[in-house]
């Protein structure tokens, strides 16, 4: 690549990492199944016993001395089984899992469950969907993997003014969809990555992306970032890659 800002998706992913965050769960007991979800993120995990009902439990996320936010465990079920369907395609607008993903931006995750990765990427798509304008760049390991998502993306561009750019190794030719551009990638790098990036419609505060690498078969190492410089470089990198 000619750019001097980014030489690989891996480098961009590493740049997206921030300081280690701390997750504290408050409630009657530490829930093994929720901990297994939280444990996928490279954060410090602590449990504080409180004699309150399980349904009233909560967790907080902080970075150093800074409180970032809290998630209600009334939504513990959603943490275990996050909504996979895209936000524009489901009644479930609120998602505790997306909230958690958002609070843990800059935190590396390792996931061996593709469905969970889909749910993680939904946080980026949801932000794009809610704003309704701008450009959403999405990579697929191959364009044939995009096939199953065609109806969902048709509805996304049908219900918003978003412009979607799809990148992938050209092993299948998608049907033409208005406001969806397909960019065949021949570099081969994208086959190991999954990238979703929203340009924020030009506003830094709205820019966000997920960069995940399938380091081992069915094991994804990635990060969600709101760092506008990283998101800008990422989108530029993708566009250069297919030039």
């Amino acid at each position: 690549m000619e750019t001097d800002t980014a030489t690989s998706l891996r480098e961009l992913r590493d740049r997206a990492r921030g300081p280690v965050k701390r997750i504290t769960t408050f409630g009657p007991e530490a829930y093994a199944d929720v901990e297994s979800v939280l444990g996928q993120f490279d954060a410090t995990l602590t449990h504080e016993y409180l004699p309150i009902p399980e349904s009233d439990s909560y967790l907080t996320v902080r970075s150093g001395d800074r409180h970032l936010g809290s998630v209600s465990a009334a939504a513990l079920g959603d943490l275990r089984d996050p909504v996979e369907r895209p936000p524009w395609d489901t009644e479930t607008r609120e998602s505790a899992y997306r909230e958690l993903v958002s609070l843990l931006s800059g935190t590396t995750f390792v996931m061996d469950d593709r469905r969970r990765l889909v749910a993680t990427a939904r946080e980026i798509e949801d932000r794009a969907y809610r704003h309704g304008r701008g450009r959403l760049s999405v990579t697929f390991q191959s364009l044939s993997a995009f096939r199953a998502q065609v109806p969902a993306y048709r509805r996304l561009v049908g219900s918003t003014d978003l412009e979607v750019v799809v990148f992938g190794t050209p092993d299948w030719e998608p049907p033409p969809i208005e406001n969806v551009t397909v960019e065949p990638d021949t570099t081969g790098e994208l086959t190991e990555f999954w990238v979703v990036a929203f340009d924020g419609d030009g506003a830094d505060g709205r820019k966000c992306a997920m960069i995940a690498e399938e380091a081992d078969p069915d094991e994804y190492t990635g990060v969600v970032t709101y760092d506008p410089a990283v998101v800008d470089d990422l989108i530029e990198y993708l566009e250069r890659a297919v030039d």
Partner: protein
Amino acid sequence: MVTGDTEEVSHLFQVLSHPHRRVVVYYLREHETASFATLAETVTGWIEAGPGRGESMTDRNVRATLHHAHLPALAEAGLVRYDTDSGTVTFLGLSAAADEVVDASLDADTSAARLDLERVLAAVDESGCGQSTDSTTSESDGSVNRGSGTDSGGPGDGN
């Protein structure tokens, strides 16, 4: 003897009239001592996503009022010791009667029904919460894990 308890309970009710002070007591009853940062995080999460969700207050304001108002009030009432130099808060314990009041208020603060605390106090008064104990304070009982691990409620049950 009941009069002494009633006075103590009334005073406790006054001190615990603010939900953030109650959360501090709920936490410290289980852990005995805590850093200021942990208490602030506990209270902030409690009102943002826990049993007290719905109250809107920034985490900065939670910290400020905890430091300037609530912890000094709890210290004044003899419930905690607040060492501002080390940022450590230590629980000094509750009498058996006071402990029951805190049980009842915890029930009220966490039950789906959101009982009215005034009513809980009235109920505690009627049942004579001091009857089962003498009126000496038992400071070392502060960390008894009441109700932990069971679903049975506190004294509010069956009212």
